[in-house]
Structures are given as structure tokens and as C-alpha cells.
């Protein structure tokens, strides 16, 4: 089994090196796409095999070699394949494989095709390290690794110029990439602090050692660790207030958005909380967990509200991702770790599908993102239409779809926990989710063919790409059916979450409420946006002037706030500091030099060249000595 672990881990790495080292400078070749896709596929197969093995024989733990050892610290490259990580591995490799195949089509016209695959496979490798590592430091490697790959991939089209904020809220790919990286680093600091706290109080960073030691630690300490680690999770999973990078990250190629910014990387934060469930389920850190749940619920609503007004097809999806991450955190915070993980997986499938569908639309529309310019595209893009429809149904949480099971479970959990505010928010958000996802679907595929007037000639994606997307569609529909199997599998490792009897009893009504709300949302969207004819839909200019709309459309002015109150002051302060550095710090040094020089200039004035002056100097000196002698003698 060890070999399988290494295959799953290193196959993507080999792919990355293959594309990066040998083909970085050569022109586009499909060989790279095929080889890399196959390698990720191999990793997927390895993951599946491992999953079966884990299900049967339990976790696999391998230690490759030691990495850092200094003082008492000893960090190995160790990998743990247990129920949790193997689930993540499956999700990651599966979605990656499909995204890789998809990319061979999507990136077909891009000059930097080979480079793209190098980055993408590197990302998969990092993500695998993240999920497979058996210690916090290893997790951090992956954590940072995915950060860098995300940076590279968001900024993939680095040649694009910076726009103003009004023109493009993301300014430019390279800007968005930097924003993502830096914002994540803010959170990483929290994570590092958590690691330090763990090390100095436990003496190890291995999961098993740490979790075994947790009960012996002081409450305050546990809270600090929990907070610190969660700060790390907030960055990667784009929780408020570190969320702005995620929508801007949509500057990257769409497969990247699908893989990194929807299915895998952004869920790393959730994974961390799930991974550290022995910590977060402790009584001492209950407050933190509740905070996580509340923040999750808040973000779910907050992101959904922004999605209501968004016009950019990718932003809508990104915001929905944000919103769903909120759901996951709500579940994890409430202690329903396995439900969170279940939603994570389900979400990965339908969200990746949604993104890839959106990618098809973009591809067809020559990278046009504004849904106001689309409409009625189902005729030309039937495949994508179906896929996006399925994904949206799943997202909206309609019955039999994957999202129905997972999201419903989360809402039920909130109810069961007695956190009715969270529950209410989540229920309302579910309705909003249905609305905005179908708003997008109807805008894009139904109604007037607005694109024609703009001179677009859309066509659907390559067939094989559409075929390759099929597994996602199937999973988006059917994943929920395996909820019980998953439950059985995963609760070997994660704590089970028992619904109370009452909740169980009320479950059909609760579920019904959600479905009703979702259907209402879809219906409103249908009414508003699906109509045909020139006057079927008109922009409500008046409403667009209202405060609420502006607030939402401007992302609650949070990016503005960051710009005005962090970026600009920082820039200003930097410039000021530089001036201070030159004028004061360096100036002081120079002043010493100048003063020495000046005093030299002054004192050379005594060298008048005139002998009588010299004699006077001597006389004065002698007199001073004599006077000093006299004074000293008189004083004693």
C-alpha cells in the first residue's frame, strides 16, 4: 500500500515536472495534456484503491524521511491515509483528472498550454501533500504550496494590464494573484502561530501525538490554538473578512477556478477544521466552534446576497462557492464534521461542474463574462446547458440531487443544535441560492439571444470534453444517494453526529421548507429572467441606484475599505518611512560626518598662519594650565 500512497502523491508531481522541465519552452503539445491527465488519472486510481483498502483494513501511515530536525523539533515527511484524507484524495484526484482533461480542450488555443499543465499538476501535488500529511508542518507545506500554485494560476495571463477598479474590480490577473497570495499569508501567520503553540506545549507536530495530548492542555491554551488554526483556515477558505481574494481570483483560467477556487483548495480550511476535530470538539473550545459556525452562516448569507446582483458569470459561481463554504463551516463548527466533509465532497462535484459549464460559456463567448450579454444559448450549447442545469439543481438543493442531501443535513444540524438563528439564516440563504443560480442559468441559456447583436458566434465545447465532464454530472446527481455508506465509512474516523429524536421527527418538514424556498427562488428567477422577446427583461435602473443594490454590487464596499484603509495607508506609510530613512536615519549619520567636517573647518581657523596668533595660542594654553594649577592647588 505504501507504493500506492507514493503513486497517488507523486504522480501529479511527475506530471508537473514533465510539463515544466521538458516542455516549458517548447510550443504547445497535446502530449503534455494527455500525459498529465493520465498521471492524475493514475493518482485517482491509486486513491480509489487506497480508499478500498482503508475501508477494509483501516488507515495507512507511511513516513518517507525526516525533513526538519532541530532542537527537539522533528518533522518528518509522513503521510497518513485514513478515512478523512482518502475522501479528500478521492475528491481532489477525481476533480483534478476531469479538470485536466477539460483543460486540454479549454486551453487548446493558449500559447502557454504546457506551462498551464505544469502549474495545474503542481497544484494537485501540493493539495495531495496538504490532505495526506500526518503533521501540521506537512499540512503547512501543502497549504503554502497550493497558495503558490493558486498565485501562479490566477496570474496565468500575467500579460494583461492593470485596469481601474471601476473597469474591472479585480484590476488584473497579476493583481488578483498577488492579492490572493498576500491575503492568504495573513491567515498563514495565524496558522504558524497555532503550530508554534502546539509545538511548545506538546513538543510535536504529529497529528496523533497532538490530539492525544490535547486533554492535558489548559483551556486558554486550547482556545488560542483553536483560534490560531482557524485564522489559517479562514484565509484559505476565504471566510469573512479575508474573502475578497476569492472573487478576484476568477481572473484565472476557468479550469483553475473550477479546481482550485471551487472544488479543492478553498475547502482546505474546512478540511483543517475537520482534521483537527479532536480539538474543535473539546468542551473548552466550544466558543470558538460556535464562532466558526456563526461566521459560516454569516458568510453563507453574505456571499449569497452579493451573488444576487452579480453580473459576471464567474463571480456568481465564486460567490456561491463562498456561500457554500459558509455552510461547511457552519456544519463543522456545530460538530457535524462528517456532514461538513460530505457537503465538501458533494460541493466539489457540482461546483466544479458548474464552473466548467461556465467555462464552456465563456469559451463560446470569447471570454465574455457579463450574463447580461448572453441569453438563449441553450440552442447552441445544449450539453453545457444540461450540465449547468444539473449543477444548479444540485446547488439549489433540490431533491435527489447531491446538494439536497448534504445541505439539508447541515440545515438540520443547525436546527438540532438549537442554533435557530444560524438555522434561519441557512434556510433563507438556501432560497437565495436557488434564486441566483437559476438567475444565472436563465440569463445565460434562456430568454432573448442578446449575444447576437454583439456579434458573438458561440459554439459548444469539444465533445470529448463534454463527455469527460459526465462523471461530475453523475456525481452531482447521485452522490447524495451514498450518504449512508459514506456515513458508515467516515464515522470510523470522525465523530458521529446524532440528530435528536425531535429533529428526526421534524426532518421532513424542515426539508420541505427548504425545498419550498428553493423552488420559490427558482420560480422568481424564471419569472424575471427566462422570458423571451425584446421586452421580456429590462434592467431596473431605478433599483440599481438604490443603496441596497449598490451596497451589494460593490461587495459591501469591503474591497474599497481595504484599499482606502489598508493598501493606501500602507503605501503612504512606506513612502514616508523611506523618506524618514533617508532624511532622519541616514541624515543623522551624514550629520555626524558633516559636523565633524564642519568642526574641522572651524578649528582650522585657529591656524591663521600668523606667528603672533600661534604665540598667543601657546600663551593662552600656558596661562590656562597655570590657572588650572592655581585653582587646583587652592581648592586642595
Amino acid at each position: 500500500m505504501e507504493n500506492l500512497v507514493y503513486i497517488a502523491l507523486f504522480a501529479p508531481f511527475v506530471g508537473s515536472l514533465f510539463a515544466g522541465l521538458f516542455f516549458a519552452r517548447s510550443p504547445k503539445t497535446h502530449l503534455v495534456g494527455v500525459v498529465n491527465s493520465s498521471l492524475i488519472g493514475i493518482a485517482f486510481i491509486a486513491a480509489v484503491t487506497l480508499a478500498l483498502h482503508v475501508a477494509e483494513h483501516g488507515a495507512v501511515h507511511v513516513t518517507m524521511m525526516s525533513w526538519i530536525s532541530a532542537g527537539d523539533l522533528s518533522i518528518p515527511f509522513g503521510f497518513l491515509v485514513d478515512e478523512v484524507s482518502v475522501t479528500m484524495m478521492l475528491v481532489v484526484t477525481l476533480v483534478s483528472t476531469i479538470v485536466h482533461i477539460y483543460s486540454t480542450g479549454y486551453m487548446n488555443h493558449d500559447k502557454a498550454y504546457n506551462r498551464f499543465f505544469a502549474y495545474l499538476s503542481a497544484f494537485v501535488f501540493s493539495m495531495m501533500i496538504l490532505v495526506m500529511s500526518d503533521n501540521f508542518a506537512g499540512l503547512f507545506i501543502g497549504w503554502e504550496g497550493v497558495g503558490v500554485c493558486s498565485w501562479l494560476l490566477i496570474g496565468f495571463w500575467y500579460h494583461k494590464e492593470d485596469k481601474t477598479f471601476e473597469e474591472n474590480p479585480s484590476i488584473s490577473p497579476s493583481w488578483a494573484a498577488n492579492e490572493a497570495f498576500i491575503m492568504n499569508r495573513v491567515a498563514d501567520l495565524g496558522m504558524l502561530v497555532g503550530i508554534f503553540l502546539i509545538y511548545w506545549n506538546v513538543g510535536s507536530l504529529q497529528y496523533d501525538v497532538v490530539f492525544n495530548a490535547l486533554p492535558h492542555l489548559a483551556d486558554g491554551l486550547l482556545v488560542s490554538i483553536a483560534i490560531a488554526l482557524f485564522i489559517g483556515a479562514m484565509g484559505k477558505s476565504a471566510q469573512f473578512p479575508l474573502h475578497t481574494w476569492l472573487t478576484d481570483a476568477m481572473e484565472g483560467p476557468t479550469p483553475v477556478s473550477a479546481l482550485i477556487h471551487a472544488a479543492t483548495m478553498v475547502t482546505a480550511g474546512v478540511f483543517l477544521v475537520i482534521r483537527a476535530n479532536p480539538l474543535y470538539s473539546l468542551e473548552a473550545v466550544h466558543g470558538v466552534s460556535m464562532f466558526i459556525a456563526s461566521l459560516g452562516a454569516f458568510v453563507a448569507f453574505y456571499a449569497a446576497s452579493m451573488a444576487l446582483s452579480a453580473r459576471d458569470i464567474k463571480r456568481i459561481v465564486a460567490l456561491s462557492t463562498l456561500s457554500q463554504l459558509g455552510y461547511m463551516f457552519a456544519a463543522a463548527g456545530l460538530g457535524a464534521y462528517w456532514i461538513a466533509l460530505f457537503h465538501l465532497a458533494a460541493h466539489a462535484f457540482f461546483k466544479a461542474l458548474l464552473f466548467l459549464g461556465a467555462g464552456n460559456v465563456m469559451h463560446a463567448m470569447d471570454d465574455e463574462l457579463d450574463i447580461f450579454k448572453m441569453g438563449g444559448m441553450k440552442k447552441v450549447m445544449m450539453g453545457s446547458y444540461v450540465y449547468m442545469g444539473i449543477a444548479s439543481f444540485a446547488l439549489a438543493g433540490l431533491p435527489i440531487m447531491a446538494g439536497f442531501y448534504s445541505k439539508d443535513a447541515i440545515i438540520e444540524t443547525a436546527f438540532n443544535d438549537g442554533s435557530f438563528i444560524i438555522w434561519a439564516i441557512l434556510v433563507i440563504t438556501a432560497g437565495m441560492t436557488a434564486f441566483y443560480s437559476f438567475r444565472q442559468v436563465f440569463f445565460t441559456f434562456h430568454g432573448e439571444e442578446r449575444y447576437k447583436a454583439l456579434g458573438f458566434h458561440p459554439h459548444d465545447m469539444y465533445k470529448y470534453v463534454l463527455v469527460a465532464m459526465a462523471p461530475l454530472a453523475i456525481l452531482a446527481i447521485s452522490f447524495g444517494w451514498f450518504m449512508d455508506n459514506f456515513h458508515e465509512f467516515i464515522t470510523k474516523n470522525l465523530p458521529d453526529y446524532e440528530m435528536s429524536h425531535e429533529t428526526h421527527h421534524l426532518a421532513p418538514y424542515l426539508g420541505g421548507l427548504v425545498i419550498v424556498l428553493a423552488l420559490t427562488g427558482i420560480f422568481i428567477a424564471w419569472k424575471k429572467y427566462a422570458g423571451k422577446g425584446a421586452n421580456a427583461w429590462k434592467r431596473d435602473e431605478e433599483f440599481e441606484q438604490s443603496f441596497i443594490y449598490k451596497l451589494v454590487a460593490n461587495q459591501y464596499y469591503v474591497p474599497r475599505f481595504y484599499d482606502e484603509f489598508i493598501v493606501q495607508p500602507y503605501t503612504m506609510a512606506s513612502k514616508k518611512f523611506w523618506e524618514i530613512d533617508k532624511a532622519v536615519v541616514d541624515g543623522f549619520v551624514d550629520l555626524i560626518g558633516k559636523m565633524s567636517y564642519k568642526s574641522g573647518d572651524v578649528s582650522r581657523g585657529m591656524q591663521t598662519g600668523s606667528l603672533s596668533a600661534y604665540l598667543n595660542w601657546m600663551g593662552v594654553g600656558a596661562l590656562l594650565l597655570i590657572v588650572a594649577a592655581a585653582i587646583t592647588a587652592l581648592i586642595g
Partner: protein
Amino acid sequence: MDYILSILIFFPAIAGILGFVVDKGSAKAYGVSVAAIELLLALGLWASFDTTNPGMQFTEFSPIISQFGISYNVGVDGISLFIVIMAALITLLGIILLRDDTKNMKNMIVSLLFLEMTMVGVFLSLDAIIFYMFWELSLVPMLYIIGAWGGPDRVYAAVKFFLYTFAGSLIMLVGLLAMAYLFHLESGIWSFNLLDWYTLKLTTNQQFWLFLAFFSGFAIKVPMFPFHTWLPWAHGQAPTIGSVILAAVLLKMGTYGFVRFSLPILPDASVTFTPFIMALSLIMVIYTAMVAFAQKDMKQVIAYSSVSHMGIIMIGVFAMNAEGLGGSIFLMLSHGIVSGALFMLVGVIYERTGTKIMDEFGGLAAVMPVYATVFGVMLMASVGLPLTIGFVGEFLVLLGFYKVSAIGTILAGTTIIIGSVYMLALFKKSFFGPVRHEKNLGLKDLDRRELTALLPLVAIVVWLGVYPKPILEPIDNSVKALLVQMENHAQLESTKEAIIVSKKEVK
């Protein structure tokens, strides 16, 4: 192998003297060969180095001024070994990177070889006066390199560099002499031998003043805030090779001095001064990182970033535990490699375009992909990405310092944020976006000479990022020995508590 250290020290100098005779045209080849042999010797030293022995090895001792206790006394331990190897490596690669049309190539090579002698000498000396000798001598070739091959303000920069460091080290000299006197009072003999000094127990008051004296010498060299202003000048004006060696090796002399002198000889004062050092270092880390962000000149960004990173190293030195101290020594190496490489890279683009102003570039990633890749790797190492060399040291330093001060560590930890701010801003301005000037469209990517110089560094960055053990282990051994030494010689109980050789209370 008995005299390998002397050979290491004096081989470049002798080669430098002989270099006067070498024909102008083959001066570079001569320099490369000598530096390569020196590197091989250094690697040979590593090969025969007993990594399990934390003490001084290959020691040589011969009295010079026996009346006054000055002796030629050299030795190597895990702390100095790798800095020496790095010095040799950086010198070699720096020489390789020299353009063939460098004016006065012969003088350059000769100065570099002399500089190499002084660098190696500083790190191998176990006698305070010999240490001081190499310390001061290193200024002379550097003065010449900056002053003769530098930019328009080179003379100002070179003289500033020389005088500033010189002034600081003269006060350090007073400290060394006072130290010798105290040793004399105690033992009745004169000795400048460090190993002798290590046996001396000083009162806290004596330690206090001696620490300040040493501090003035080392802090200027590091350079610690607010004594850092010579560095941007020196870097701004120095030729590429000068900046590379300055950043990679010469700055390390300061931190090495703290490790070799301040900590073991003055354990109590070191602990007493930790808050002070921490405050200065934090200012270094944050303030200079912000200043770096404000720069327009690419080289100045890296110059200020050096200061910022040296702040992290300083914090690690004063962490008083094996993790932090070992980490800071590792960080010295990694910063040497990374900043050396970054300065080389700036030199490469400067040679092509004649400018270092970032706004002049833009879109270089498209024009010079290999260059951009190498730069990117170094950038990532610089911001401390795991699995690059930069992470290991930074992580260990912050980890170690957490024991001293949680708040301090969080503030110092902002380096991973603001460090990436200025580095990514640099990268974005220079490499991303559209190509801003027509003439930059035709820029050539790295040629073979440049790749020869840079790829080994890339390899090291990755190798030591993934597998730092071969280096970390000897460092760790020596660091632990040093901490034991500190603990044994501390006068105050509080000092003993602050020093953590090994965690006692693992739960």
C-alpha cells in the same frame, strides 16, 4: 588534513598575489579556477568533518604575540563550516557571473580573492584579534570593489560603508581588549583565545558593558536598525559581484559575531538585552520591509529586504533555544544563497537594460521566461515558501522565538506577509503586465554563463528546502553545545531559565 583551515584561509590570498602575474585576458579563468579549488577544499573540509562532534575541529594554534596572548588560532564547528562553504560557493559563482568585458578584470579578481581570504578567515578564527584582523581587512577589498566598479555615487557609498563599519568595530575592539583584560585579571595570563574566554565567568555588570561594545561592532555590520543606512547605499552603488558578496557573506559576519562572541561569553547580558534586540529587530523586520515596498529601484528592494531578513536572523540568535538559534544559522545560509542569487538576477537585467528601475520593465516574464522562472524560485525562497531553503530557517527562527515572546513572534511573523508584499509587487511590476518599452521586447534570456552561475543556486534552494538535514544536523549539534556553554556560564538564575537546551517539560 591537519592544516586544511590555514590552506582554506590563505590559499585565495596567495593565489591573489600570484594573480598579479596572470595575463589580463585569462584573469577570469584564473579566478574561476582558484575559487573552484577553494570550494573543493571547503567541500573536502565538510567531507572530513565529524558531524557528530559539536566542538571545534581541525584546530590549529600557534602563538603570534605571546606576551599579549595573541595567537593564530583557527577551528571549525557546525556553525562556521557551512558559512565558509557558502562563502566559497558564492565567490565562485560570483566570479563566473562576471562579464568578460568587465574593466580591470585582473584587479577585480585579485580583490575578490583577497576578500575571500578575509571572509573565510573571519569565520574560522578562534582568536579575537585574528578575527578582528580579518573583520577589518574585509573592508578593504570591498571598498575597492564598490568604489572602483560601482555606480555614480560609488565613492560616497564605499567610504560610508568603510567608515561606518570601521567606527563600530573600533568600539568592538575596545570591548575585546577589555575582555582580554578581564580574563587577565581572572587567570593571570593574557589570552585572546575564544575558547579561553568561554571559560570565564563575568559579572552581570561587566557583561552589560561588554555586550554594548560588541554590539556596536556587530550591529552595524548586520546591519541593525538604525545603523543600516550604509547598506542601501552600498548595494545601490556596488557592482553585482559586490552586492552579491556583501549580502551573502559580509552581513553574516555580524550575526556570526553575535553567535560566536556575545552569546557564549556574555550569556546574562544576552538575555538581558533580548528585549532591546527584539525591539530593534522587529523594527528592522517591519520598517525596512515597508521601506522596501516604497522603492522604485529593484536592487534597493532587495537591499532593504536583506535588512528585513537579517532582522529575522537576529531574532533567532536571541531566541536562546536550539530551534531558534539553529534556525537563524540556517537562515544565514539560506539568506546568503537567496539574496546572492537575487542580486545576481538584478545584475543580469541591469547589464541588459542599464537600469534597475522597476517601472522601466514590465512583462519580462514573456520576454525572458527562464529568467523569470529563476527569479520566481528565488522570490519564493525569499518569502519563505516551504520546500525552499527560505522556509526552514524562517520557520525555525519564528518557532524558537515564540518561546521568548509570543507578541514578538507575531510581529516578526508579519514578515511572511509584508515580505511577500514587496517581493510580489516587485515581481508584478517587473515581470507581469504588458512590456512597457519596445526595446525590452528584444531582451535575451539567460545565457550559458548566467545559467552556470544561477542554476547551482536554484538546485541548492530546492535541495536544502526539501532535505536540510545534512546541514541542519551539524548546526544543531554545535548550537546545543553552545547553549550548554551559555547555561553553564550564566550567573543569573533567570538566564538559565531563559536558555532552553532541550525542552524539559514535554507533556
